[in-house]
């Protein structure tokens, strides 16, 4: 089959659904509101960046193939044929949208351009035109179960290291159970929260410890990364295959609760896509996330904190997938307000928050680093500066990577980390907070000496 035929078939298939896509092909009133709320267009107000123009890459062909006016009047009504020359433009343009869905929040009809972006990427994938760096993440994850390609052995070493750290911090053994069958909670973080930015995971371990539930949870040495880049490449088959590894592992362990870590898109795939669409039928476990779970215990007064451990101004960046797409907005604030002395809001926030600039998998693409630092992340940088915060918490490994690079690129002395990281430093165990913190991103080290 010719490449052009493949594209046309994929676009014609929109007539069979999903409903959102079909509606978005036919509904836009072209009022320009999306562009005024798009983080990318904000920094680069050029025609090719306009969300409507990007969506038109597919819409125009859809019109030509599936509408009478498009067939009869062609370019006069914005309909046109696909041409082989378009591939290059598609590959570039569809990876310039961060999929943050902010446009949909302000569009009078709620048109979500990220759905069209994902369709464009899906077609690129079908033709083998996914950017190599993105495809590699998907392949590695399918091969090893995690996006870092870490072996179970490397994972166990990391867990051992974290247990030693906690022993030094608190003088007692705080366990991170692994591969325990029959444990109630199966904790699924992003791999970054074990290997790169591990304080979030020690935070979770401490919460379980304080609650006396240390024997009721487990991690998996094979499935310790909820990240699933099939969402970003538009590759449904890979997304589902990756997802199935985790659902199967939860079933094998006999868990009652799949406790998702600080990873927005992982939680969104589980909670908003896999579960309601019943990819794997009815599940023998429920799905929640660590922010909700910890917040419940804080509200119930079961956890105590020494806020002076986190004296610096702290702000929270709402990851688009957690905030706008899953409504997890109050919980991280409950955790940060309980564990930090000076929590500050960033404006706008919650469902209105601006994307970090690394959404839609872009944060993994160092091939477009300058674009991410100068364009997609511009608004975020301004927002963070305005808070005066010295620590930005983001419950998302993709946001964290983008934000860390953003701070380095713009020479800002602002630390980026997770939400449970702050909890880990301030939570009281036997009446005492952690005694020693020397992680690389250790703002607390400064505050101890200063």
């Amino acid at each position, binding site marked *: 089959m010719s490449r052009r035929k493949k594209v046309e078939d994929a676009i014609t298939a929109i007539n*069979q659904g999903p409903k959102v896509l079909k509606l978005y092909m036919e509904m836009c009133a*072209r009022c320009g509101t999306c562009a005024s709320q798009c983080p990318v267009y904000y920094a680069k107000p050029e*025609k090719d960046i306009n969300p409507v123009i990007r969506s038109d890459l597919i819409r125009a062909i859809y019109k030509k193939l599936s509408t009478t006016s498009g067939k009869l009047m062609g370019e006069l009504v*914005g309909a046109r044929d696909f041409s082989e020359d378009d591939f290059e433009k598609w590959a570039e343009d569809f990876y310039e949208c961060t999929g943050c869905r902010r446009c949909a929040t302000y569009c*009078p009809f709620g048109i979500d351009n990220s759905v069209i972006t994902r369709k464009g990427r899906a077609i690129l994938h079908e033709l083998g035109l996914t950017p190599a760096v993105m495809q590699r993440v998907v392949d590695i994850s399918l091969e090893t179960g995690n996006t870092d390609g870490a072996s179970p052995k490397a994972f166990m070493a990391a867990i051992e290291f974290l247990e030693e750290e906690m022993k030094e911090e608190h003088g007692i053994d705080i366990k991170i159970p692994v591969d325990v069958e029959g444990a109630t909670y199966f904790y699924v973080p992003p791999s970054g929260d074990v290997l790169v930015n591990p304080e979030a995971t020690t935070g979770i371990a401490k919460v379980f410890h304080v609650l006396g539930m240390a024997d009721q949870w487990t991690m998996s040495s094979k499935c310790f990364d909820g990240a699933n880049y099939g969402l970003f490449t538009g590759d449904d088959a890979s997304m589902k295959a990756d997802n199935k590894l985790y659902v199967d592992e939860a079933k094998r362990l006999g868990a009652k609760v799949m406790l998702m870590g600080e990873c927005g898109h992982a939680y969104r795939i589980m909670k*908003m*896509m896999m579960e*309601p669409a019943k990819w794997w039928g009815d599940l023998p476990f429920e799905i929640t996330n660590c922010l909700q779970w910890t917040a419940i215990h804080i509200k119930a007064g079961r956890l105590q904190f020494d806020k002076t451990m986190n004296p610096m101004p702290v702000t929270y960046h709402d990851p688009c997938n957690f905030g706008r797409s899953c409504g997890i907005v109050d919980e991280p604030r409950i955790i940060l307000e309980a564990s930090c002395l000076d929590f500050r809001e960033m404006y706008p926030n919650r*469902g209105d928050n601006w994307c970090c600039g690394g959404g839609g998998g872009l944060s993994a693409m160092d091939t477009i680093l300058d674009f991410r630092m100068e364009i997609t992340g511009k608004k975020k940088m301004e927002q963070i500066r305005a808070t005066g915060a010295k620590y930005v918490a983001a419950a998302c490994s993709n946001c964290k990577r983008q934000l860390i690079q953003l701070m380095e690129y713009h020479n800002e002395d602002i630390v980026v980390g997770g939400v449970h990281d702050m909890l880990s430093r301030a939570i009281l165990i036997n009446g005492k907070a952690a005694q020693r913190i020397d992680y690389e991103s250790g703002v607390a080290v400064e505050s101890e000496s200063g």
Partner: protein
Amino acid sequence: MSTFAFIVGGILPGIAVVIFIVGMVYRLSVWLKIPQPGRMTLFPASEGTTKAVVAEALFFPSLFRGDRVLWTFAWVFHATLALVALGHIRVITGFVDRVLMAMGMSAEGIATMSGTVGGIAGVILFATGTLLLIRRLTMQRVREISGLPDFFALLLLIAIIFTGDMMRFGAHFELEQTRIWARSLVTFSPQIPQHGMFLTHALLALLLIMYIPFSKILHFGGIFFTQSLIKRR
């Protein structure tokens, strides 16, 4: 009776109504049938999905938060359009008159109100329609996404508004003739007003009615579908 008047006033209304109804039923039924796996909810999402969707259709709160200037033009334009549509239903059916009379208004009172409210509404529509057109022509982010269908829809509406206004402010037209005409159509014995401005207005309006199911103006039906998907709790 001229051929033009007979086509516009006698034949086209029937064709337009059939095309409109068949077109709308077709488009909406297709949208209803297509499956939607997974949830597209955008947060914050309130508990009452229907209430939120109706609020979007009536007051455009998302647009209000997104672009205050456009909201002002668009809301006033749409709300006035709805009022004028109601006014046309009054003129054509007389049903609204009966309701108003039951509420104690006299026939003269209704006529005066219709003249005043209709006149003001006509001016507002023309002004906001023109502002929307100017916005489309001058604002970069809107101009770069505007194509022939966008200008056609807007210009057609403005032309309908203009000819409607002209019947009130220029070439005077007795409203009662419209009611007679509408009734005559139902009984298939057309009595068509021989009035140039009226016929032009009717022609453009009938073109619009036929165009709606196949154009972006269908957004007044689609909004319930798209907003339901993202407001679904």
